[in-house]
């Protein structure tokens, strides 16, 4: 009887460990999203992906519809090719939809936002989104801003001296 109790308590202990591993796998690392087979993948070429990472969310109108599966460089065009996994529920995406890379807040992570188009032909597994807008790189924007400020103040000086 005593031995039985010990055995069952040890069993519960082992189960708790397995349960914790499952919890860490599914709830913490979000493994389930990449394992569930009910999605299809589409690709898109971007000029610049910024700091987009694999498994970043893909959204339509702010609603999570999938995730980034992989990012790699096209060796001939030197553009970034992004493969996205979209939930099969969203299978009515027009094929003239556009994809843009946005940032969550000022310091947040990057994500992809899809803007549906108007065609009656829908995107299928393996299709490519033609219409893309690259990530906004904050440093580039600041650079452009500084440049335009500098050039405008320079032209002011020129005009006053003339």
């Amino acid at each position, binding site marked *: 009887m005593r031995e039985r109790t010990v055995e069952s308590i040890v069993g519960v202990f082992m189960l*708790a460990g397995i349960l914790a*591993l499952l919890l*860490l*796998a599914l*709830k*913490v*690392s979000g493994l389930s*999203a990449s394992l569930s087979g009910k999605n299809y993948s589409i690709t898109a070429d971007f000029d610049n992906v910024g700091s987009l990472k694999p498994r970043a969310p893909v959204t339509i109108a702010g609603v*999570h519809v999938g995730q980034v599966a992989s990012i790699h460089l096209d060796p001939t065009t030197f553009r970034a090719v992004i493969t996205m996994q979209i939930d099969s529920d969203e299978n009515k995406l027009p094929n003239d939809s556009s994809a843009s890379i946005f940032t969550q807040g*000022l310091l947040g992570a990057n994500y992809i936002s899809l803007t549906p188009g108007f065609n009656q032909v829908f995107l299928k597994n393996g299709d490519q989104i033609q219409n893309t807008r690259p990530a906004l790189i904050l440093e580039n924007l600041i650079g452009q801003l500084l440049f335009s400020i500098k050039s405008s103040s320079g032209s002011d000086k020129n005009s006053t001296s003339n």
Partner: protein
Amino acid sequence: MLEQLQTLGRVGLRFCTDLGRSAVFLGRVLTRAPRFTKSFPLLIQQLYSVGVLSWLIILLSALFIGLVVGLQGYNTLDKFGASQQLGQLVALSVVRELGPVVTALLFAGRAGSALTAEIGLMKATEQLDSMEMMGVDPLWRIIWPRFWAGFIAMPILALIFSALAIFGGYLIGVEWLGVDAGAFWGNMQSSVDFYDDVLNGVLKSIVFGFVVTWIAVFQGYDTVPTAEGIGRATTRTVVYSSLAVLGLDFVLTAIMMGGW
């Protein structure tokens, strides 16, 4: 001067001898083939005293560490307006570092010292010798189940620790400080990788479990069979295994991050 050199040499030689003896000891334990019908109940019994009885201290420390990391993280992240990333911070620090390391330190203090004291007392009261007299191999009867019980129990305890600490972070972040639950779990899931983070944490805890149990069992078996010797061996177990865990943690992290 010469005497100091002599002392240094003696200490170095003794260290080498101890290391060699512990390695031989480990080899002899590992090569003991299990006899399933007899070893299994012994293993279960040890899993109970090593693993299940450490459960309460692991549970409480995990909860408190989760709460503290959540609170500290929230206060710092909030300065940057990034309190949404709290889940990521808690999960990564717990799964990668705090879970395996703190569990191993607690395990060394709770289970390792008990193993050493138990085996040491058996040696001091000549139970090990009398077993040998009766033709029962003490390495197989005493050491083998304890070693494997520690090896198995430690990763499980670390997993439970990680899960509970993240739950503690959730309690403080979402329930008390008002971080959005969706952002908490969502940011966590998008940044924690199962293989790179969770499985590496598990790997760490397996290595720690192996080392801590090895040190504990060897110190017990190698103890000077007096009351004072047992005390010293127990102290050495805790000190050596804590140092080993922290040192190994650095090496393992460097390997995992550096991609050797």
